[in-house]
């Protein structure tokens, strides 16, 4: 790295992401997209959410896509508790089964194959998570880059950072070397809260795992509660993904995108 210590007025680049970070980032990205995609189709087969041990057509749901076939054209509505909205435009119906229409129902759709894909991608993500944790600890990235520093969690700093996000402000200069505090919190939340939670709620849907560890039922409140929490986690991960990509454009698509591919990140001087 060439650092001639001539202040920040000169452009310079440095290795922002070492190879393990980049490799694991892209494998995880592929696995997560696959899981969201296959999970979406699995959800479509029974688009109702319940709380407790059991839940089925005929039992009350806490949220559902419901079909009303009394009129000529099937009316679809999304019902959450007492609240209901007509969604005929984005929902469809195949074999008496309501589903989310956003993508056309594939003619050669294999439900069994989709589940197989989901479990395979889950294994890849689990292995990836373990190696990423090892990398975070061994390289010091967890301590140096992810954990908020002293004072960073002050209300004043959180508020400043929040306002920076609202203003869609691009961070320049040496400050761009560090993650901001909200970024740190969101990475920690995905790595140490959402991913473990989505794995455990997924395992609570498994008959054999809950036979071996029935305590999972007690932790999550039953098989259907676990399923509901699983989809809530999936939704939050999707939300993270969207914000993550939007932030990439705000922070600089080329510079940050390149950093996650080649590792090199360029410090762009602050405007005068």
């Amino acid at each position, binding site marked *: 790295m060439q650092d001639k210590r001539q202040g920040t007025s000169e452009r310079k680049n440095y290795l922002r992401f070492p190879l393990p970070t980049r490799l694991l980032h892209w494998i995880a990205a592929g696995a997560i997209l696959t899981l969201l995609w296959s999970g979406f189709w*699995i*959800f479509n*087969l*029974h688009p*109702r959410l319940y709380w407790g*041990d*059991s*839940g*089925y*057509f*005929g*039992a009350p749901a806490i949220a559902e896509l419901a079909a009303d076939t009394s009129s000529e054209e099937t009316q679809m509505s999304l019902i959450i508790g007492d609240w209901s909205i007509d969604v005929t435009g984005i929902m469809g119906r195949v074999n008496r089964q309501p589903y989310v229409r956003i993508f056309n129902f594939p003619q050669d759709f*294999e*439900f*069994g*194959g989709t*589940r*197989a*894909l989901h*479990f*395979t991608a889950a*294994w890849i993500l689990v292995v990836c998570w373990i190696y990423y944790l090892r990398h975070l600890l061994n390289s010091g990235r967890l301590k140096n880059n992810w954990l908020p520093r002293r004072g960073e969690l002050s209300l004043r700093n959180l508020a400043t950072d929040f306002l920076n996000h609202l203003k869609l402000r691009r961070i320049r200069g040496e400050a761009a070397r560090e993650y901001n505090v909200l970024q740190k919190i969101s990475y920690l939340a995905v790595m140490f809260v959402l991913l473990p939670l989505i794995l455990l709620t997924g*395992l609570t*849907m*498994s*008959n*054999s*795992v*809950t*036979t*071996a*560890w*029935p305590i999972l*039922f007690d932790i999550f409140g039953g*098989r*259907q509660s676990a*399923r509901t929490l699983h989809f809530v986690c999936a939704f939050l991960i999707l939300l993270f993904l969207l914000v993550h990509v939007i932030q990439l454009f705000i922070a600089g698509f080329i510079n940050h995108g390149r950093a996650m591919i080649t590792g090199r990140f360029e410090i762009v001087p602050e405007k005068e």
Partner: protein
Amino acid sequence: MANKLNRRQLLHGMLLSGAAGGVAMAAAKYPSPIRNIYDLADAINYGLHDLLLSGQPLVREYDRANVAQIFPTSGVTSPRDERYQRMLANNFEDWTLKIEGLVDNPMELSLSELRAMNSQTQVTLHTCDEGWSAIGEWTGVPLWQLLQLVGVQPGAKYVIFHCMDTQGDGNLYYESIDLFAASHPQTILAYGLNGNPVPEPNGAPLRLRIETQIGYKHAKFVERVEVTDTLAHVGAGRGGWWEDIDNAVWYAGL
């Protein structure tokens, strides 16, 4: 420095080779050829879950008050086969269950003979791969008891359940589990649901309850139990109707 690095690398290498060995063992144990990465993941789940369940722990049972009065269904709810409909109309008086294959004494049992055997009643949670689940009270004969009666021969590995309902593609439904799952204390061939005979939509007169696995394994309308050392000779050889046509995973503990 080299030494310190080597110790860490050695440990990592040992863990990796252990994992690779485990995967190879799981793949060898899998009943069908491993065609792709999905089959490999299925084989890994099968191997790991067998370790998890090695003590044959019991599944949780529920309060009878929580049973679903009208038990939900999936798949065929009324076989269009004439032979089945005739037997249904006749209250399955002429129906028999055959147990055959790698057994010492093949048997054929009528419904009343099955009802006269030691029965077991369990209130369990049924989970469908579509996402729903429902509690039911099931009564039937433990499969291990039937297997003991016919005498399983050495070398047998799997139990195939042949059903009476023809599917959309013209093939009969069938499913299979390994002998270990078949010997689980709560694996029963059920003729009763919530105190009544199993209704037609739920698999009259006899259906499998394999409580450690998911819904499509619970073969309905069963008429023949085959003890075998291979799954290759039935259907497309993947061990079940959904496995054959839909690439469903054979190991259905999850």
